[in-house]
């Protein structure tokens, strides 16, 4: 492979030009706050299209495998599932009473039906291709054409997934809540204490800036507070898994996300947040 190279001057010029191009590209984005230029949108839309095709193909192969070749143990699994259905039906019957009661109480309090606002279902077609940082961003097959914009909240029925950081016409990139630059404003469901949950680049999260952490205990659920104006209030974010003394005054609190972010298939994007429910006069007067 060793060969004498020709004159190097044009080479240095080419290298300098390429490096200058990239330097200008990220300098413009960081200095002017342009989070996603036309180059990114165009590349995202073109590449993610191929990405979606590849994803569908892999899913197809996996589907054939699971449908025809991996059927061992289906009978026993079927029996387990049937008993699970029976148990869940009984539970459903019990809980439908609770739902009716809640609806009656809500009418009494003159509250609107809770809603997520306008949502769009999107399919996850890819993940961050760079190593180590993988699972911190995902690519979804919906974009500006479907009403998605930067800072659109993304979730699953289990809880919050992240927010859109770049939206092309048909595809978008979602920053997961475990990303080291992610921060979500939250409150403890039981005590209503507010704080900020930060990603640390691993599968867990850290709770910071909570005004009083003395009542925190393992198993406490954290929900979004809505103060960050990205995620609507009341979405489940995670559960406290560890509370230990920290280096400073505050405790070191570890959170496990409610959503298994390694197994995302479809997500829900909140394109129009719900309108704030009016606070009933009886409640506001009592404050």
């Amino acid at each position, binding site marked *: *492979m*060793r*060969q*004498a*190279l020709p004159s190097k001057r044009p*080479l240095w010029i*080419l*290298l300098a030009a*390429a*490096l200058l*191009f*990239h*330097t*200008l*590209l*990220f*300098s413009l*984005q*960081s200095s002017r706050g342009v*989070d*996603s*230029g036309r*180059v*990114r949108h165009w*590349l*995202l839309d*073109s*590449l*993610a299209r*191929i*990405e979606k095709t*590849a*994803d569908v193909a*892999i899913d197809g192969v*996996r589907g054939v495998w699971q449908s025809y070749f991996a059927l061992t143990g289906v009978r026993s699994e079927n029996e387990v599932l049937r008993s699970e259905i029976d148990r869940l039906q009984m539970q459903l019957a019990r809980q439908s009473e609770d739902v009716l009661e809640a609806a009656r109480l809500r009418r009494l309090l003159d509250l609107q039906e809770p809603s997520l606002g306008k949502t769009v279902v999107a399919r996850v*077609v*890819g*993940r*961050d*291709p*760079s*190593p*180590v*940082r*993988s*699972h*911190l*961003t*995902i*690519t979804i097959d919906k974009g500006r054409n479907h009403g998605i914009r930067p800072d659109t909240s993304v979730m699953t029925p289990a809880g919050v997934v992240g927010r859109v*950081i*770049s939206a092309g016409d048909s595809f978008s*990139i979602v*920053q997961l809540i475990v*990303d*080291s*630059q992610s921060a979500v404003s939250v409150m403890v469901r039981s005590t209503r204490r507010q704080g900020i949950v930060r990603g*640390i*680049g691993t599968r867990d999260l850290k709770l910071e800036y909570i005004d009083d952490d003395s009542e925190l205990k393992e198993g406490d659920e954290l929900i979004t507070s809505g103060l960050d104006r990205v995620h609507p209030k009341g979405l489940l974010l995670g559960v406290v898994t560890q509370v230990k003394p920290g280096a400073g005054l505050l405790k070191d609190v570890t959170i496990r996300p409610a959503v298994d972010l*390694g197994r995302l298939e479809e997500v829900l994007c909140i394109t129009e947040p719900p309108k704030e429910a009016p606070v009933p006069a009886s409640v506001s007067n009592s404050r």
Partner: protein
Amino acid sequence: MYRIRTVTTIGRFVMTFAAVVVVQGVLPHHFRVFSYFDLPLVLCVYYGFTLNRPGASILIGSALGLMQDSLSGAVMGTNGFSKTLIGFLAASAGGKFNVDQPIARVLALFLFSLADGLVVSMLALVVGDAAGPAFDGAYGARLLSAAFNTLLGLVMLGYHDRLSHATT
């Protein structure tokens, strides 16, 4: 005629790169082990060593990095900058040293992997990358990734050797 052939070659290269970058994004979504591979980086080194054309290696690195940036949450240009440098350095190393020896290849691939991570992280810190720096304590994972990249690079270069021997 020459121009048409050049355009076709460039088009084929771009399509291959696009497929590679995309596959790099799709496979980790289904199989977690693939997240340790950095196929664009391995390709940069591979073409740097085998093409003997530093100019082409610079352009290849630049294009691969840009595609990688566009599909990740990283600021556009960070991976492009790093892969451009790696492409140039790999081509220079291929021209000046004997990179046919496995030991030299292992060393080069491993060091280029670590250097790429370092450059991307430093740039991310400088520009305040929205997706965060990559070197925030994940040293073990970074070393593992470098080992995976080295292994993949060795296989690809070995395959290239067999092909070139078969044709000569």
